[in-house]
C-alpha cells in the first residue's frame, strides 16, 4: 500500500512494559496536509504511541517510515531533527525566559559566539507572525496567558526546525472557546502548508470541527482508522469504549430514581463565601440527601469552591456554617472533624499516597480523625479494608497491595473509601470519574446515589455534563470564578452548556 501523500507510516508497533503490553501491533499513518485525530480512553495507548514516535520510548517491534524512508527514532533530539515536533498539554516551556528565548533557544542566532539578541527577537516575532500573533517578545513568558503560551509553544515547534509532523497533545484542555477557535485557525493554516498534524483530544466536538481522519486505539490495540465524515459520534464513542450501542444506552439509563425531594435538613450553608483571586463571593445551601452538581469548565472556579468548603484555602469573605455551626478555623483537619470530606481533582498529587498499601490509604482519614494517639488496631484496620474493598468492588489481590500499582478507577475507589469510612455529612467529589473506565464510572455514580439515599449531602463536580445532569437534583453553573446560575429540576444540557459558555 503506497500512498505518495503518506508522511508517517508506523506498522506493527509493539511495546511492553513490565506487567503490561502498552501497545500491541499498532498501525498508524499520517498524510501530508492532514489533521489526524488520535482517540481513545485513558490508558488506550495514545501517549505511548506518541512517545514511540518522538523517540522517548523505543518500540520492541515494528517499523516507522517517514515519507517512505525507514527511520529509527532513538531520542527526542533525533525526532526533532527528522521534523517531528510536539506541543504538550501542559505548556513545556520555561516561563522565566522571554517569549523570544522560548521560541528560539536551541537555534539562537549568534554573532562572534554570543547570542545576537536583536536578531533573535526579530526572528521570534516573525515566527509568531506566521501564526498571526503580535506581542512583546522580550517579556517573560509568565506574563502571558496559558493560551498565548500554547501558541508560543507551537511557534517554537515551527521555528526551530523544518517541521513536517506536528503533534498536539490535548492542546485545548485549558483554553476557552475563543482561544480554541484561534488555535484551530492556526492548525488549518499549517495544514494548508502541507504539515501533517496529529491531534489528541478528548473533546468530540473539536474532533469533528477540525480532524480529517480519526484513528482509534483501545487497551493498547489498534481498532481502526476512519474518515471523520463517515463516522458518527455515537459510533466513535462506541468504538472507543468497545461496546455496542445498546450497552451505551444502558449506561445512559443508569439514572437511578432520585429520592423525592423531601424537606431535608440543611447541613451546609455558605453565605458570600469567597477568596480574592480565587473565587467571587458565593451563596450555597446544601441539604441532607441531595446531590448538588457543579458544572463549569476548567478554571471556572469549581475546584476553588471545593477547596474553600473543605478548608484547603481559608476564605477571606463570607461565612460557612456546617450543621448550623459557623466555621471559624479552616483546614482539612477541622473539616474532617466536622464531617466534611473531599475527593480531590488531582488523584495522583492530592489523593493517593502511592507507596502505602490499600489498607493504610483507606484508614488514613479515619486515623487522622482519631488523632495521634488513639490507635486503630491492625486487625480492625484489615476488617475495615476488607469491608470497603468488597463494598466498592476494588479489584486487588490483597489489602496490602501498594496503591500506586492499582488502576485509576480502583485508586479513585480507595480514596472514596477513605472518606466514606469517616461517615461524613457532606462529601465533595471533584471530578471523581475522570480518566477511569466506563464500568468503574457507572459503579461510582451508583455509589454516589446510594450514599445520598442514606442521607449524605454530596457536591458533585464534573466536566462531563451528561453525568452531572444524570445524578444531581440541583445544578450550579460556574464561570470565570463566579457562580452564574443555579438550576433545579428539569433542565437540558443545551441550557447549561450555554450558561457555562456565557452566551445566554
Amino acid at each position, binding site marked *: 500500500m503506497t500512498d505518495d501523500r503518506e508522511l508517517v507510516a508506523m506498522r506493527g508497533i509493539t511495546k511492553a512494559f513490565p506487567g503490561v503490553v502498552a501497545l500491541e501491533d499498532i498501525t498508524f499513518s499520517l498524510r501530508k496536509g492532514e489533521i489526524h485525530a488520535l482517540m481513545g480512553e485513558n490508558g488506550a495507548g495514545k501517549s505511548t504511541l506518541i512517545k514511540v514516535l518522538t523517540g522517548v520510548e523505543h518500540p520492541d517491534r515494528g517499523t516507522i517510515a517517514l515519507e517512505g524512508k525507514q527511520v529509527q527514532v532513538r531520542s527526542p533530539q533525533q525526532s526533532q531533527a527528522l521534523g517531528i515536533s510536539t506541543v504538550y498539554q501542559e505548556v513545556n516551556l520555561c516561563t522565566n525566559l522571554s517569549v523570544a528565548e522560548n521560541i528560539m533557544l536551541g537555534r539562537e542566532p549568534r554573532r562572534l559566539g554570543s547570542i545576537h539578541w536583536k536578531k533573535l527577537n526579530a526572528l521570534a516575532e516573525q515566527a509568531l507572525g506566521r501564526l498571526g500573533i503580535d506581542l512583546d517578545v522580550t517579556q517573560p513568558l509568565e506574563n502571558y496567558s496559558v493560551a498565548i503560551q500554547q501558541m508560543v509553544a507551537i511557534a517554537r515547534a515551527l521555528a526551530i526546525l523544518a517541521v513536517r509532523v506536528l503533534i498536539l497533545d490535548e492542546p485545548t484542555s485549558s483554553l476557552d472557546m475563543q482561544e480554541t477557535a484561534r488555535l484551530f485557525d492556526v492548525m488549518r493554516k499549517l495544514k494548508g502548508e502541507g504539515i501533517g498534524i496529529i491531534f489528541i483530544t478528548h473533546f468530540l466536538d473539536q474532533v469533528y470541527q477540525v480532524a480529517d481522519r480519526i484513528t482509534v486505539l483501545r487497551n493498547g490495540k489498534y481498532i481502526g482508522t476512519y474518515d471523520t465524515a463517515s463516522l458518527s459520534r455515537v459510533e466513535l464513542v462506541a468504538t472507543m469504549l468497545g461496546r455496542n450501542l445498546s450497552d451505551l444506552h444502558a449506561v445512559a439509563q443508569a439514572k437511578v430514581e432520585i429520592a423525592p425531594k423531601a424537606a431535608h435538613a440543611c447541613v451546609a450553608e455558605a453565605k458570600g463565601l469567597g477568596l480574592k483571586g480565587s473565587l467571587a463571593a458565593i451563596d450555597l445551601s446544601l441539604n441532607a440527601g441531595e446531590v448538588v452538581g457543579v458544572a463549569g469548565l476548567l478554571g471556572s472556579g469549581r475546584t476553588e469552591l471545593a477547596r474553600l468548603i*473543605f478548608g*484547603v484555602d481559608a476564605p477571606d469573605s463570607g461565612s460557612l456554617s456546617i450543621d448550623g455551626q459557623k466555621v471559624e478555623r479552616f*483546614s*482539612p*483537619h477541622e*473539616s*474532617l*472533624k466536622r464531617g466534611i470530606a*473531599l475527593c*480531590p481533582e488531582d488523584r495522583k*498529587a*492530592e*489523593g*493517593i*499516597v*502511592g*507507596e*502505602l498499601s490499600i489498607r*493504610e490509604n483507606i484508614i*488514613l*482519614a479515619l*486515623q*487522622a*480523625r*482519631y488523632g*495521634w*494517639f488513639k*490507635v*486503630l488496631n491492625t486487625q480492625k484496620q484489615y476488617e475495615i479494608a476488607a469491608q470497603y474493598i468488597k463494598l466498592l468492588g476494588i479489584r486487588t489481590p490483597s489489602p496490602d497491595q501498594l496503591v500506586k500499582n492499582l488502576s485509576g478507577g480502583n485508586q479513585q475507589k480507595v480514596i472514596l473509601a*477513605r472518606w466514606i469510612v469517616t461517615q461524613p455529612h457532606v462529601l465533595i467529589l471533584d471530578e471523581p470519574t475522570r480518566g477511569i473506565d466506563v464500568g468503574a464510572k457507572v459503579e461510582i455514580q451508583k455509589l454516589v446515589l446510594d450514599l445520598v439515599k442514606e442521607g449524605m449531602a454530596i457536591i458533585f463536580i464534573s466536566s462531563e455534563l451528561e453525568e452531572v445532569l444524570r445524578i444531581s437534583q440541583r445544578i450550579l453553573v460556574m464561570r470565570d470564578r463566579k457562580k452564574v446560575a443555579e438550576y433545579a429540576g428539569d433542565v437540558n444540557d443545551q441550557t447549561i452548556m450555554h450558561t457555562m459558555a456565557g452566551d445566554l
Partner: protein
Amino acid sequence: MNAPPPLKRIRESRLFWPLAALFIILLFDAIFVPSFFKIGVQDGHLYGNLIDVVNNGAPLMLVAIGMTMVIATGGVDLSVGAVIAISAAMGAVLINPALGDRLITNDILTKDATNTPLVIIVIANLLAGTLCGLWNGMLVSRARIQPMVATLILMVAGRGIAQLITNGQIMTIYYTPYFWFGNGFILGLPVSVYIVALVFIVASLIVRRTPIGLFVEAVGINPKATFYAGISEKNIKLMAYAFCGFCSAIAGLILSSYVHSADGNNNGLNYELDAILAVVMGGTLMSGGRFSLFGSIIGALVIWTFTLSMYALGVPDKALLAGRAVLVLIVILLYSDQSRRLLSRLFDRKGARHGATH
C-alpha cells in the same frame, strides 16, 4: 513461582546491605586486626574495641534515630552537629560552679562541684536541643523553607550560638557525676548503650504502636495528599524536627560527658554527614517514606566499626574524613535507582540462566 525466591527476598530486604557491610568489616578485622574482637573485664565492666564501638557510636545512633524521622518526612537536618554543640555548651555553662558567683578563681572553676542540680542541667541540655529542633521545624513547616536551607542556617549559626553560650571558650567540665552519662557502666555495659536502647524502644513504640509512624510515612510519600486526608502535615514535620533536635541533645549530653568538655567548634563535628550516611545505609530513602529505625542503628554501628577498625590500623582521625566521604559515595551509588536496576537485572539474568539449565 509466586513467592519471590528467598535469595531475592533477602537481597531486597532493607537490612541486607547494612548487615552485609557490617559483616564485611568484621571479616576484615578478623583477618587483619584479630585483637579487635578481644573483650576483657576490668573493674567489673567490659572493655575492648567492640564495647568502644557501641559506646563511641552511641551519640551517632541517637542522632541517626532522630534523623531517620526527619528524612522519612522527606526532609533533612544538617544542623545536628551544631545542636550537639549547643546542648554540650548549655550543660557546661550550667555545671560551671562559678555560675552566678561574682568571685571567680581558678579553684572554683576547677572544683568538682556545681551549683545547679544535675536534673536541671540535663533538662536544660535536652530543652536547648529540642528548641533548636522546633526552630528548624517551624522554618520548614510554617515558613516553608527547603529543609536543606533551613537547617543549613542553624548548622552554621548554631556553632556561633554554642560559642556565644560558652563565651567563645572551650569549657572543661570537672563535675564527676556528669561524667556518668558518657563513661559510666551498668551491669558491665556502658550507660550510653542503655540510653540508646531506651530511646530506640520508646521511639519504636511511638511510631509503630501509634499512627504517628504511618502519618510520618504518608507525609514523606505525598505531603499534599496527607494534608488533604486531614492530617496536619505541618505538625508532623514539626514533631519530626523537634524529635531530631531532642535526640541530638542527648547525643550532646553523652559526648560532652565523654570528652569532659564543651567546644562550640568541635563538638559533634561532621555528625550531619555521618547521620545521613547511617540513615541511608539503614534502608530509609532520602526521598522520604518508609523508614527503619533499626536499620539506622545498624548503619551507625557500621560507621563506628569502620572508624575504630581504621584507628586500630593507625589511621589518624582527621584523615578518616576523606575515607568516610568515599564510604558515603559508595552507599549512595549502591542505593541509587540506576545501580539497583542494574543489580537486579544482573541477578535476574543469572536466575533466568539457572532456570534455563534446569
